[in-house]
């Protein structure tokens, strides 16, 4: 072998190794972003969002030097959430720079920049939720942007995976185009359901209906204040819960209806994958993961109600929701790529 050829082989091998490590790092960033969302969920469930009244300091001190002995009660959840957030921010900076210095396509580099911008914006939104004392829409936006940050990080991880190439426009079949469109629909449905869930939590509507699968013994929850009065007597005196209003009940019910929409969309998508793409292992795998997560998510939703929103069950419910979003996204991205032959 000539020197030029061996250098070329060495350069290719070296670049492949670097690309693999970039991919692995992107996976780590996606996993850390997922963990950050779980930590944020725990902050909301425990009502700790304002346990640290100042930002970006912690009780007047540098957040990185606030002593662990003082991480008590709600401070533990909020402070740890901020620390993980800062860490994810640093990881995103590294990922962004790494992408720009790599030989990856330009669009992937811009995706890295988008990830960094999103996580910076997310940090600012988090600060605003504290400064303005948890206004509902800022809190919901903070939850929504968290999902977007995760999706961008996951996209980078998927698109940097070795052994894949982009499908050229001419290669796309009609069925593939249909599948791609439907993947987008499912992704949108799951994202909107997550936003509804965030709205439900940030309007204290998470336990506005205390039974499942019925709503106060009926298919449809109360529509009048008079009917709600006896429900609130039971809530206050039997269940030791705060009373609720009709708006809260119906926001909660909207999340349940949203779940039915997601189930319908996901079932149609999975059927389509099995019917037309049974030979594409990567699509079948993603569809199976989505199906499994869907069943788990419905069970977790029920147990969240039955357990009166216990911390771990609620956190798991939020986490599986994020994973459903992720698996829908992976399915969509795989409609854009083919394994290298």
């Amino acid at each position: 072998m000539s020197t030029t050829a061996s250098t070329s082989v060495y350069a290719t091998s070296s670049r492949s190794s670097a690309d693999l490590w970039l991919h692995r790092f992107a996976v780590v960033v996606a996993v850390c972003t997922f963990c950050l969302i779980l930590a944020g969920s725990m902050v909301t469930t425990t009502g700790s969002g304002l346990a640290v009244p100042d930002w970006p300091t912690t009780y007047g001190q540098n957040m990185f030097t606030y002593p662990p002995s003082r991480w008590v009660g709600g401070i533990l959840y909020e402070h740890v959430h901020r620390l993980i957030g800062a860490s994810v921010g640093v990881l995103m900076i590294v990922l962004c720079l790494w992408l720009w210095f790599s030989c990856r396509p330009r669009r992937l580099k811009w995706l890295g920049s988008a990830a960094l911008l999103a996580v910076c914006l997310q940090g600012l939104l988090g600060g605003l939720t504290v400064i303005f004392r948890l206004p509902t829409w800022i809190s919901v936006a903070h939850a929504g942007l968290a999902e977007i940050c995760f999706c961008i990080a996951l996209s980078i991880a998927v698109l940097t995976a070795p052994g894949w190439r982009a499908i050229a426009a001419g290669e796309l079949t009609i069925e593939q185009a249909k599948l791609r469109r439907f993947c987008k629909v499912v992704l949108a449905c799951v994202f909107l359901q997550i936003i509804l869930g965030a709205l439900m939590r940030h309007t204290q509507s998470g336990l506005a209906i205390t039974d499942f699968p019925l709503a106060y013994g009926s298919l449809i929850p109360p529509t009048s204040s008079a009917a709600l009065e006896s429900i609130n007597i039971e809530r206050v005196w039997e269940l030791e819960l705060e009373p609720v209003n009709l708006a809260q009940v119906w926001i909660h019910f909207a999340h349940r209806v949203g779940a039915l929409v997601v189930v319908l969309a996901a079932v149609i998508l999975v059927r389509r994958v099995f019917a037309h793409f049974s030979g594409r292992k990567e699509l079948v795998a993603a569809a199976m993961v989505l199906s499994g997560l869907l069943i788990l998510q419905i069970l977790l939703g029920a147990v969240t109600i039955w357990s009166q929103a216990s911390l771990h069950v609620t956190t798991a419910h939020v986490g599986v929701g994020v994973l459903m979003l992720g698996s829908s996204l992976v399915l969509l991205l795989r409609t854009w790529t083919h394994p290298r032959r």
Partner: protein
Amino acid sequence: MFSKRTMMAALAAAFVCSAAQLAWADGGVIKGLASWEGEPYKRKPIQVSADPHCAKIHSDDPLLSEKLVTNPNGTVRDVFVYVKSGLPVGKTWPVSSEKVVLDQNGCHYVPHVFGMMAGQELIVRNSDNTAHNINTSPKNNEGFNKGQPKKGMEFTETFENREIMVKFKCDVHPWMSAYCAVMDHPFFATTDEEGHFEITGLPDGEYVIATWHERFKKAQEQTVVISGGETKEVEFVFKRPKKKKKKGN
């Protein structure tokens, strides 16, 4: 010149007039009880293990829920009683210079329910050896969320507008809450460990006295007439509401 009998009558009349004037100057009094009908309400113990300081101080004496406290004598504590209407229209009442103190002591707020006047100073104090945040979200006043990470820290706040109630809560210790009524007059009281309340200094008039309690959505009201600086007694009765039968949606 005057007989002994006349002199005695004049002295008695003078005494009665002075007493009456004194009574009018002090004003009328509305006092009474907030009674509880039925079995004493069982207060649930609060899980405080999230903070080692709170867990330590309550290891032998559990902290109990303050959402409804029925006293051993069959009365209710922490009922806020106030004059809802009947005061002279347009009259402004001087704001007391006395400072109201809200203390965080034993990982709960002391007092749990209290009243103050709009513009009166409120001192919020941390007497615990742990961090607290004091979070309020009033509807008619400027809210705040302040931290007191150390024992002994204090800050002063005022609320400028009438509001029943302003809720105080601690997000570090989610079981902690207190309620503050911001009034535009000084005629209010909160029932004590015996269920008693007393509102003093009322001018003559016909008043509607109302109650507020965090567990009872509907206020109770009674009309009381005060004349000649007299003392009137009223009783408010609280009981566990009966569960209504569901009539459908």
